[in-house]
């Protein structure tokens, strides 16, 4: 008797399973066709680091203390600065990160005394060579400043 019982209940369980999948057949889809449609990024998203643009100065506030370089576990960050005056602050000349080594721990952002580093929202970082992963943050900043200025201009025109 248990022989037929197992066949019966076994068959029933299979039909129940098929009911689950056929219901899904008419569900709305949960995926999006990626390059054509995108889902919004979360506000906390951590891309590679970049410089924050401060409203008051219109640029970054890096003082070339080198804390980020020292704290980075993987040696991602390289920066250089020069002293323009004998006893003045240093000015940043180079700030380069090798994103291929970065593990996105965020220690550099946390340790920065002037809080001039932030996470970018960049996620399409495909490159053909390793050197494509090397990001020059100062050049990036310059591009962003330019873009902002342009945006302001067009806004001004529109107004």
């Amino acid at each position, binding site marked *: 008797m248990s022989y037929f019982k197992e066949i019966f209940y076994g068959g029933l369980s299979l039909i129940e399973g*098929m009911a689950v999948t056929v219901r*899904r*057949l008419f*569900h709305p889809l949960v*995926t999006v066709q990626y390059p054509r449609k995108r889902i919004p990024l979360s506000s906390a998203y951590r891309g590679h680091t970049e410089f924050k643009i401060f409203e008051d100065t219109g640029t970054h506030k890096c003082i070339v203390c080198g804390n980020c370089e020292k704290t980075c576990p993987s040696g991602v960050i390289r920066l250089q600065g020069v002293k323009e005056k004998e006893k003045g602050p240093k000015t940043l000349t180079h700030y380069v990160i090798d994103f291929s080594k970065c593990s996105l721990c965020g220690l550099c952002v946390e340790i920065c005394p002037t809080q001039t580093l932030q996470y970018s929202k960049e996620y399409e970082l495909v490159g053909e060579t390793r050197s494509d992963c090397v990001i020059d943050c100062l050049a990036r900043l310059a591009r962003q400043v330019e873009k902002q200025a342009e945006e302001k201009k067009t806004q001004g025109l529109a107004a």
Partner: protein
Amino acid sequence: MFGSEWFRLILGLLIVLGFASLNALFLVWLERKVAGHIQLRPGPMEVGPHGLLQTIMDAVKLMGKELILPAKADKRLFFLAPVLVFMPVLVGFLVLPFGPSMIIRDMNLGVLLVFAFSTFTVLAILAGGWASNNKYALLGAVRSVAQNVAYEIPLLLAVMSVVLMVNSLSFSEIVRSQKTIWFIFVQPVAGLIYLISATAETNRAPFDIPEAESELVAGFHTEYSGMGFGLFFLAEYTNMFIVCAVATSLFFGGWNGLFGISLGIPGVFWFLFKTYMLIFILMWVRWTFPRVRFDQLMNFSWKVMIPISLANLVVTAIVVKLI
């Protein structure tokens, strides 16, 4: 000239060659779409409207790929196997009753021919698995042989009960006798057993143990690349069509409409519609269930399917005799 048997045969073969490959490509697309929508994703979308041309592009890609011959493989057998697997599948089309007058060759042994040839694919799978000189492929081939031996029996027993009722092995004869009532209503057990065995026969999930992707990498066609793999792939889908077409003509009334009501639709469309519905069910099953284990499959076949189909056959014989 036009009425001659030879002309009919050659024309039929040409149509079959065209239809079989296009149909297989369409079925691959359909499978991906069904799988996609069951899994809450759209499936192929990029090439052509709703990805319709995707499989054609895939076929082109496969044709452009290098055929890799593994070291120490049996060269002749290795290249013969994909051809062997595709040929009998094509022959099966010869006797399928697409419509009242749409049979390439209406033989009085049609049913027998289809099953004789479909068994042939096992030989090809064994040859391919053996010739690859790969342990996974060999395991897959061995599993395939054992599985097919076990499943041919209930499959044929289920078919036998229909044949007993009609007293003929000709497809057109069988379909004609289902004019008013389909055999699935008369022989539900046989129909179910046929469908289950057919799934095993075509090596589809949950009985896809010869290629058991997560166990044997790709089973018997592990070592095949390019069009060698492509032919195995096309054969699987064509085989699926044949098996479902046979089920349609044996149990679902072939070109007949439901209870003799044809709604003015030509028979061939009834036939194709029912065949594709059955194929859809096979796909639905595949994307729902996990794979059974090898020995459980055997147990299921020998301890459940064969006794039940035998009992069914005996009951059928008695009832037919009494009536």
